[in-house]
């Protein structure tokens, strides 16, 4: 009925503000982080676990540029496994991890940053701005 709908989807995310995918199972943290990022001008997709994140990434029209994920999450995959899958399937996407636990650099060496919780949202956003140019 709506021919050419996919081309008319830009308002659903394509070619508008840079898109960041936030993966966080704590709804308060997710909301607050998404608010900060939207306030900084980014378009934000929200997922509460790795499977949701991978489902969203399959929607190429969203053109996600950066994955910001917690490491400890319920479900089959944690944030480290999600990061590995994203690095492999979507090598252009920048990856930043967060966690309440500290991890040796070797665990997140192939990502673009790690922020131990509690993190300063301002510093996190500065880092993201630097990564996305």
């Amino acid at each position, binding site marked *: 009925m*709506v021919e050419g709908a996919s081309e008319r989807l830009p308002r659903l995310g394509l070619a508008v503000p840079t898109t960041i995918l936030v993966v966080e199972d704590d709804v308060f943290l997710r909301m607050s982080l*998404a608010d900060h990022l939207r306030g900084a001008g980014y378009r934000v997709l929200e997922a509460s676990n790795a499977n949701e994140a991978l489902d969203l990434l399959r929607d190429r029209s969203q053109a996600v540029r950066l994955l910001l994920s917690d490491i400890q999450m319920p479900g089959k995959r944690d944030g480290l496994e999600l990061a590995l899958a994203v690095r492999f399937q979507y090598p252009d996407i920048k990856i930043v991890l967060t966690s309440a636990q500290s991890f040796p650099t070797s665990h997140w060496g192939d990502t673009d940053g790690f922020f131990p919780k509690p993190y300063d949202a301002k510093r996190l956003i500065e880092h993201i701005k630097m990564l996305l140019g």
Partner: protein
Amino acid sequence: MTEEPEVQETILLVEDEVLVRMPIAQYLRDCGYKVIEAGNADEAIALLLHKETIVDIVFSDIEMPGAVDGFGLAKWIREHRPGLDVLLAGTVPRTVENAQQLCEQGSVPKPYDAQIVHNHIKRLLAARKAAKENE
């Protein structure tokens, strides 16, 4: 440029299916609403119990995993946050229809037809099904 920005109304969107929640949330944001996303009723209740969470409308799916479904959430809201509007939808077409109605009342002119959102959701769900079958 000197106009006061309109106060954004906030919608709490409760939907467990991320491929439905994301396009509906984007659509409502494009219509000028602030949208808080919750993946189930427990998350929604936790958010509503928090005094600092300002919500004007709750827009919820009916069938959801967890101890409380959409009807249970609506009942909880009637008891604990009387006066807060609740919109329930049990199917994707109904969800899209409700979103379109909210959009028509939003502060920004309707950015695109809700049918586009519906088609997008259908494509996303079909693509996931195909991907799972190929796994």
